[in-house]
């Protein structure tokens, strides 16, 4: 297999040294594991809950909506919406940014959720032609074609906060669940703001950067990039905005939260390319391109979604290293069928794709393309969008 086995890894969860923000302590345990320990053993969640109750009391009933809830339909945003409506009895404005790759099961989940909870929903779908050009540029510069999605999801709701005059924006899980850009051990409430946006959400590229990068060969109207542009801080400050994660106030627990929304909302998981369906069917079900995304991660860093998922289970003592390695060897590192669609959208050949990726690999890992086999299709693959053939 590829040289992913030579990388330094966390003794407890197995995440490798190429994982972003990872740092190992003198015991060989990573900071992500240590953050989780702190979350469970030190953070006073009773206090945090009190803070939250005070926070929502500040905003309840005072504006056209009590808060904005950015929503993708995945397990985290579905749970967040459920909690805010059912437990907190808030009146939210649900804001959905449609990245263009929503799967049929997701759309059904969303309809069920919105109707069961009874909420107002705004959904925004950006210009597909612009999206395709952005995907290409992001792939080349950063090896991550989801720039439009990352930036749209985090910018667009902020624009609506200003437009609708709704200062409170509530997100789901804090980033400290997965990375150390923000550390649970600082015992602070993470602010989902422009600094965070620039630290890792936008891959270091703003809409203004993108404009110059794509306008040479693409017919761009500058307004095309507004949905991806973070609004000025001064405007948000004047609004009195607060943009926070529910997971900063209640301890995030993906497994029990997924079970809850399955039971109470009939939320359904789905197969995802490259993932063992029975165990992790609740993860990353939103996007058709998830398989390509995970594939890119593997090519660049030598690990992917299965490693990440089993790391969470190993960290929580739910899985042994041997069990994890069996899953990783069976499911990880295969070429997803969605790659063919991706190449079609971007009008690119597989060898062009490989060439681009080779420039972006993160040492010490190096992919060996000839050894990579095709993975399984998902059952809804044939219903996914195909570009019309050019006449």
């Amino acid at each position, binding site marked *: 297999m590829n040289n992913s086995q030579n990388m330094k890894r966390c003794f407890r969860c197995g995440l490798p040294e190429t994982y972003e923000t990872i740092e190992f302590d003198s015991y060989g345990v990573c900071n992500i594991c240590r953050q989780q320990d702190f979350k469970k053993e030190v953070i006073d969640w009773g206090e945090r809950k009190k803070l939250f109750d005070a926070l929502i009391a500040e905003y309840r009933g005072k504006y056209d909506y009590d808060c904005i809830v950015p929503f993708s339909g995945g397990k985290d945003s579905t749970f967040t919406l459920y909690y805010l409506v059912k437990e907190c009895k808030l009146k939210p404005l649900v804001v959905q940014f449609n990245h263009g790759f929503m799967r049929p099961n997701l759309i059904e989940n969303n309809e069920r959720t919105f109707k069961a909870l009874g909420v107002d929903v705004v959904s925004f779908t950006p210009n597909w032609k612009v999206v395709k050009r952005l995907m290409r540029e992001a792939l080349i510069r950063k090896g991550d074609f989801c720039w439009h999605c990352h930036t749209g999801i985090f910018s667009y709701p902020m624009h609506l906060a200003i437009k609708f005059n709704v200062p409170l924006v509530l997100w789901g899980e804090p980033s400290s669940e997965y990375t150390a850009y923000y550390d649970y051990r600082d015992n*602070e409430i993470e602010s989902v703001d422009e*600094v965070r946006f620039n630290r890792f959400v936008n891959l270091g590229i703003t809409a203004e950067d993108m404009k110059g990068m794509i306008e040479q060969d693409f017919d761009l109207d500058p307004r095309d990039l507004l949905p991806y542009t973070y609004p*000025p*801080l*001064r405007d*948000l*400050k004047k609004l009195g905005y607060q943009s926070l994660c529910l997971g900063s106030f209640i301890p995030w627990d993906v497994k029990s939260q997924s079970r809850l929304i399955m039971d109470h909302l009939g939320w359904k998981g789905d197969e995802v390319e490259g993932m063992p369906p029975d165990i992790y069917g609740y993860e990353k079900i939103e996007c058709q391109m998830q398989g390509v995304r995970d594939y890119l991660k593997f090519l660049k860093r030598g690990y992917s979604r299965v490693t990440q998922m089993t790391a969470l289970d190993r960290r929580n003592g739910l899985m042994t290293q041997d069990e994890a390695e069996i899953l990783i060897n069976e499911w990880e590192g295969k070429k997803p069928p969605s790659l063919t669609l991706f190449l079609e959208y971007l009008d690119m050949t597989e060898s062009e794709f490989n060439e681009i990726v080779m420039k972006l690999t993160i040492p010490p890992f190096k992919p060996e393309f000839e050894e990579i086999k095709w993975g399984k299709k998902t059952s809804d693959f044939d219903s996914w969008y195909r570009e019309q053939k050019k006449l």
Partner: protein
Amino acid sequence: MTIGIIDVGLGNIGSLSGALYSQGWDIELIDSPEKIKQVTHLILPGVGSFSVAMERLERSGLSKAIKFFAQDGMPILGICLGMQLLADKGVEGGLCAGLGLIHGDIRPFGVVQPFRFPHVGWNVMNKQASHPVLSGIKAGADFYFVHGYHFTVRDKSDIVGLTDYSLNFASVIANRNVLGVQFHPEKSQKNGLRLLDNFCNWSGGC
């Protein structure tokens, strides 16, 4: 609230204005005593020489106006040279009286190998006492320093933060409603912005 920034040509105030503006504060540039009436907070920035700065403050009448503002219990923040101007006296450019709002005097760093002077770069501010203006700033946080002189306080109780560079000098000082920071918060990213925000939210009480 309106934040006044003393502006008598003592160096660029673009970053300081921008830092406050972007955080949603309304600012007023103060180059004459009358304008001080309009503000709720006063910031005294500064780059350059002690005696030149004091001469300009005296000539414009601002020196007196700042002292009255302080007497009224209004919050004042001195930054870098601005902090040094709060002292009783300084020696740069010749012995010269300062505003006398926090007792002490300004001295140059001595020659101490292997330290290079002026003190330029990121260095730790060690909190000695708590103060509303430092709220939310982690212990051991670094700030950006550029200076060749330092503040020696008369009353140790005025020291809020110390920094170690050839000697332990006062990097944050405070006396009632008057505060001074030796580093540049407008160049110190997250913590600097937080400090400025805390100052603008502070009413001057302790």
